[in-house]
């Protein structure tokens, strides 16, 4: 473990209070290993050039590194063909690409889009907007009180003219790991195209898009050790080929006539303008790091540590942990009686403990949970049980600070 922690320079930065940093906000963004940071610097020092255009040696080197990164990402998520991986700024852009290029021209009045109650706003708002624009219906499949998706509610939601189903692989609030392969199979049976939001999936659980069987899978680089502004959309080749571009401009064309243009082959059709080349290369490096560790090992460690976190938090008087789950992603959300989540996060910050507080970009879910804000501790494989101990100590101290008198 100490070896792994050594790979992450920021974990050894002193906090303003002088103590060590306990970083438990990994669901917001992960920290970056030295190899990813070095890859970015190395790219700008030795390779920097625009891709797919120049004939000079740097352009060729940059293009090669960029396309190698695409192959790495494809292999990491079990995509059989690198052309099915489009680089984006992150999950949000990837989902918007599907919303605008696939859904918008195909949705008709009366059609149905199905999402779940546990979606992050990035997999909720685009579908709400598309449904409203097309006169389609947005149906929200509810969760059960234990924090899992209600399979009956999901099945009922599919009973109708459902055109698209969008669902999270792993919840950023509850930590629920959805049985996506099963849910996707049922959605396909109902005739729907499927979109899986993998923002919390790729960092924490082994992903195989072929086994899941989805049409689209969206991911964020920065949540899986990569740079911010990097991410990807996986799409089935035949879907991507049938879609119009999302953004127009350079690099995405085949031929530009005075009155019309034709589009480049996929994936380039969906990568207008100069891409975030360094970001893609950094993401490729992050994938290398995760593969060296082993996604199965990462998942086991994080799920066990998150389960331990939930159990320890439940021992603290007045704490309510959301989600009673046998298996967890990295996120554990909770509320503390008498202490607002923001005050708790502020107090813990003074102790060098970084957690998240607020609505966590999941207002529809928080309404269902009956709260306006929660606290969230989210672990990564570089976190330890000792750090969870510090969190729990901090929580006890916060209780005596805020609840005295």
């Amino acid at each position, binding site marked *: 473990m100490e070896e792994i922690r050594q790979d992450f320079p920021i974990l050894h930065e002193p906090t*303003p209070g002088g103590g060590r940093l306990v970083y438990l906000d990994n669901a917001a963004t992960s920290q970056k290993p030295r190899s990813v940071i070095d890859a970015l610097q190395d790219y700008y020092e030795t390779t920097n050039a625009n891709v797919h255009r120049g004939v000079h040696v740097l352009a060729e080197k940059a293009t090669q590194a960029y396309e190698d990164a695409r192959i790495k990402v494809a292999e990491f998520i079990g995509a059989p063909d690198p052309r099915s991986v489009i680089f984006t700024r992150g999950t949000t852009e990837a989902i918007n690409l599907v919303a605008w290029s696939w859904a918008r021209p195909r949705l008709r009045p009366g059609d149905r889009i199905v999402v779940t109650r546990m979606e992050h706003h990035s997999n909720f708002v685009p579908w709400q907007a598309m449904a409203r624009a097309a006169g389609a219906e947005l149906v929200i499949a509810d969760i059960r009180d234990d924090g899992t998706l209600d399979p009956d509610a999901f099945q009922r939601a599919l009973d109708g003219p459902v055109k698209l189903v969008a669902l999270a692989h792993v919840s950023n609030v509850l930590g629920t790991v959805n049985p996506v392969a099963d849910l996707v199979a049922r959605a396909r049976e109902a005739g729907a195209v499927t979109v899986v939001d993998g923002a919390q999936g790729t960092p924490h659980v082994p992903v195989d898009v072929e086994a899941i069987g989805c049409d689209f899978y969206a991911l964020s680089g920065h949540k899986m050790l990569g740079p911010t502004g990097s991410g990807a959309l996986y799409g089935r080749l035949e879907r991507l080929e049938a879609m119009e571009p999302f953004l127009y401009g350079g690099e995405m064309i085949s031929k530009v006539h005075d009155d019309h243009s034709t589009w480049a082959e996929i994936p380039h059709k969906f990568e207008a303008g100069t891409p975030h080349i360094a970001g893609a290369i950094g993401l490729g490096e992050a994938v290398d790091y995760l593969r060296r560790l082993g996604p199965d090992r990462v998942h086991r460690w994080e799920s066990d540590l998150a389960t331990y976190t939930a159990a320890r938090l439940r021992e603290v008087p007045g704490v309510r942990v959301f989600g009673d789950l046998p298996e967890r992603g990295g996120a554990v959300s909770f509320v503390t009686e008498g202490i*607002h*989540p*923001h*005050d708790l996060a*502020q*107090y813990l910050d*003074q102790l060098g403990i970084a957690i998240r*507080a*607020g*609505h966590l970009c999941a*207002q529809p879910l*928080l309404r269902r949970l009956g709260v*306006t*804000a929660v606290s969230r501790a989210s672990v990564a494989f570089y976190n330890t049980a000792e750090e969870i101990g510090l969190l729990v100590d901090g929580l006890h101290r916060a209780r005596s*600070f*805020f609840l005295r*008198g």
Partner: protein
Amino acid sequence: MDSEDLYQEVLLDHARHPHRYGKLRPEEIQVDLENPLCGDRVCVHADVEEGRVARIRFDGQGCAISTASASLLGDWAEGRPVEEVRAHIEWFAKVMRGEAEPDEEKLGDLMAVAGVRRFPMRIKCATLAWHALRQAIDQTASPTSPDSA
């Protein structure tokens, strides 16, 4: 900086037992503001009589800072002339933006709220109720409102 710097005793007291907080009926709510960052919400009703802020009532839920700020502001503002309250709110906004210095004589217990300015992420929590009260008295004290007739 310590938590004690931010959460001074007077602020915590008001957060635990906020003044003028209670259930407002929907028709009584003049202004309803939210801090989208954290979901804090403050609703306010302010009566203006003879050019003075006669009675203030709050509703909503928020963190210790936003709740205490509303409570302390209510203590300070109630009974004062509308113009003085307006000017004070404007000056306080400048203090929070770092454009004016906090003045202990002018602020009294509100000094505890002014201390929040050293925590940039929390300034919105501290000023939410102030914006709400400003909007409420602007509505009530406008020439067309029956209260000012």
